[in-house]
């Protein structure tokens, strides 16, 4: 079954790249979703991670640096039947595209954003990315990093995301579980995947991950009510302030309406016929619109 999800394009990542783990887990999950491949759309940004749609046998939209989220939002809002998943790197989503990441949390569309977090800009030879810790010097840097790292999980909370999780590129089963949960969630999600870059990041190695991460236990990510939401937020700040990175599902908040529902609340026609389901012509003629009724205020009495 799994070979069926290969597009046939040769994945040109470096040997040992964490992207292979994400690729494998993704294919595994897609085969378990039980939907037609044409109904899935992978939308990606620029960088090594941005190439992933080409390797998977589902429709793929490889966009601009940092802009996968707006493309995905336009696709999902126009055709809510599509399952839309965004892939991007930490530089892409948390650097050049961070404004869109925040805006997506505010809208809460049913889209999962998979952050391939390797701490460097790989395809341009290893410059510091927004998740590289302050003072760290990876091998291609001339000087230690002078910027503090951003935390996508905390950013996700502040922006209004309703699903947050962190996983590890080489733990395929864990990653699959997180992906599946995130893809099925009805709202905006961030799945941060810690992904070693064997070529450029000599700090976040498999060994480092081994020593600096742990799997969340006894943490219930599901928000029950408003009071619980405050407790969860405080709990998450606690988790994220720890020395080690927590792996697992961190937040599931089903209280907020997804973007589609919000649109349906203002556009009465949206739920029955979203834009992609609407005809706009009949044999070449525009729909028979009653112009005087529709555009009444522009007519001179």
């Amino acid at each position, binding site marked *: 079954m799994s070979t069926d999800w290969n597009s046939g*394009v040769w994945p040109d990542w470096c040997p040992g790249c964490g992207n292979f783990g994400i690729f494998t887990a993704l294919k595994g999950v897609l085969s378990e979703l039980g939907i037609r491949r044409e109904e899935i759309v992978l939308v990606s940004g620029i960088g090594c991670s941005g190439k992933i749609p080409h390797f998977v046998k589902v429709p793929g939209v490889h966009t601009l640096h940092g802009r996968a989220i707006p493309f995905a939002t336009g696709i999902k809002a*126009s055709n809510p039947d*599509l399952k839309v998943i965004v892939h991007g790197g930490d530089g892409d989503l948390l650097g050049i595209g961070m*404004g869109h990441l925040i805006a997506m949390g505010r809208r809460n569309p049913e889209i999962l954003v998979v952050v391939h977090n390797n701490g460097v800009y790989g395809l341009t030879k290893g410059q510091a990315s927004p998740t590289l810790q302050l003072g760290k010097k990876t091998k291609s840097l001339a000087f230690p990093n002078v910027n503090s790292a951003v935390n996508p999980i905390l950013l996700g909370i502040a922006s209004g995301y309703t699903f947050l999780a962190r996983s590890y590129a080489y733990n395929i089963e864990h990653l699959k579980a997180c992906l599946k949960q995130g893809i099925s969630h009805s709202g905006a999600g961030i799945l941060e995947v810690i992904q070693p870059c064997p070529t450029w990041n000599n700090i976040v190695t498999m060994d480092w991950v081994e020593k600096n991460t742990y799997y969340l236990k006894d943490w219930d990510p599901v928000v029950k009510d408003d009071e619980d939401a405050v407790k969860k937020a405080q709990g998450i700040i606690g988790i994220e302030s720890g020395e080690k990175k927590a792996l697992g599902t961190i937040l599931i908040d089903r209280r907020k309406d997804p973007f589609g529902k919000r649109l349906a609340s203002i556009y009465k026609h949206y739920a029955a016929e979203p834009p*992609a389901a609407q005809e706009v012509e009949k044999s070449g003629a525009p729909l028979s619109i009653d112009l005087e009724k529709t555009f009444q205020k522009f*007519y*001179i009495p």
Partner: protein
Amino acid sequence: MDFNLIIGGPQGGGIETAGMLAVRALAIHGLEVFANREYHSNIKGKHSYSHIRASYERIRSIKYPVDFVGALDVETIATHYKDLRPGGILIHDAALLDKPITKLPPMEKERLERLKAELERDNIGTTVKELDEWLERKGKVILPFPFSEIIAEKTKLASPMIERAMNTAMTTALLRGAGMPIDTIFEAIDSLFMEKADARELNRAVANAVSDGFDELSKTKGSVTKGMFEKGPSRGKRMLVAGNDAVAIGKLIGGLRLQTYYPITPAADESFVIEQHSSLFGPEGEIVGSPIVIQAEDEISAICMAIGGALTGVRAATCTSGPGFSLMVEGIGWAGINEVPVVITYYQRGGPSTGLPTRHSQSDLLFAITSGHGEFQRIVLASGSHQEALEDSLKCMNFAEKYQVPVIHLLDKGIANCVTTISPPSLGRIDRGKRIVKGAWEYSRFAFGEDPVSPRAFLGEELMWYTGDEHDESGHISEDPENRRRMYDKRMSKSEKILKEVPDGDKAVLFGDGDFEDLLVTWGVTTGAAVDALPELQATGSKIAVLQVRMIEPFPVDLVSNYLSKARSAIGLEANYMGQLAELIGWKTGLKIKNRILKYTGRLITQDEVVNAYMRVKGGEERVILTGGE
């Protein structure tokens, strides 16, 4: 009959509503109307005004000098007193008479210095009263009208309410002064405030009070109310629209289903109109269509969302102005290499950078055709009137899907904000372009064929890939040189197809006789001033015509060359510094347009300016720079 009036006051003081009321009343009166709105990038306090022109004939521009100036404050008097024709009428509140003319904190200091110099030069004095007297000596008619007093007396309204309705009071005075019956003004009030009963009653009461007061006043100044125009003929159904409205209506008729935008002047109103009319009603009152509008976090997001929508098969568009378009450029390149039908409505304003945010300009023609790195096919269509803007909005969506290219609908602040009477649109045709035919074969989004346009499937229908990288037929990244050449050719050769198939009327339009000697070459809203000026120019004995270029990219070289080669002398007319269209014509056709009439003050080119500038060109001036308007 050619009636021009200016009504001005502080921004936020209801000038826009006053203008709308006057325009509506004139239209109801059976006249054709064209009105310009000038305002600062400011919410309250700075000077703004409407210049309204009415005629029995359809008009497309404004003209100076004006018959009336209605001033809601001293700054309007100080700014526009020179705009009056001999015998023209100035109306202001009598309470302003003793005010100093030069104590105007909101006025920009350069303007104030010029004003002071003029007042001193002409020995006018320093109060409104002294200015009025000077104007009377110069043959103007001054009507200081005790608005507040009369309204208070006749309506018993409290003074804050009177203050709120001062715009309607002034409009009523102006229109009554020009001879319009009060019932027509009532009708305009009812229609403007259709959905607001309170405002309707207030404005009716105020208009009534002013009208009565005006009738009493006119007994002493009999000549004033003789009337400047009769009721116009019955004209059948007409609409009254700003360019933003016209485009919104055109897009809605044309099947737009996703509009994205980030707020910017002078484009944002268009999205607002689409939102307000998002229920399209069929003949039985049922909803036959309903687009959605998304306010994006920035213009990059706006264009990318629209592209995303287009990939799902939705007719998608965004609208913006120069600063927003600058941000959109990366998205347009992506749409170019991926052959995405997306429409960008581009209202030019004064640049560079923030420039003149609320003022007119035609300085982005070259940017619109060259924006984006690399080479890719696009269509740039420039409308020259509101009627065209409406119909072109539908055409742009057809072109986008038929040729699978991004389409830039190039407009300007003049079209965006000017309000005019138009005919209700004919619905036109919708052409969704080449669609996939289901078969046993594997679908390739960018399949090579005789036709550079490949059959289109939407996301959700077939397997397909898109990438901003060069790609193969299925949409996967390919750097193979042979594939590169073929894909490049596929995209670029669309220009020939477009030029072959698009009718001439969408490329360039000639106004006037074909046996011209002089040719005014223009585009955008400026076309209106040139076309309106044409009879006057012809009356001077010149064999002159106007050529409006509509399709800027791909450029209709043959058609434009044909016209130009017949001209003894060609004159470029446009609102920018370079003469961008003239430059482009030189580049594309090899035919040099030596004479240029240009304006870059941010104000519209007016009919009278075209006439004067043409005379100057005939007199030997190569480059005429226009400066009219406040």
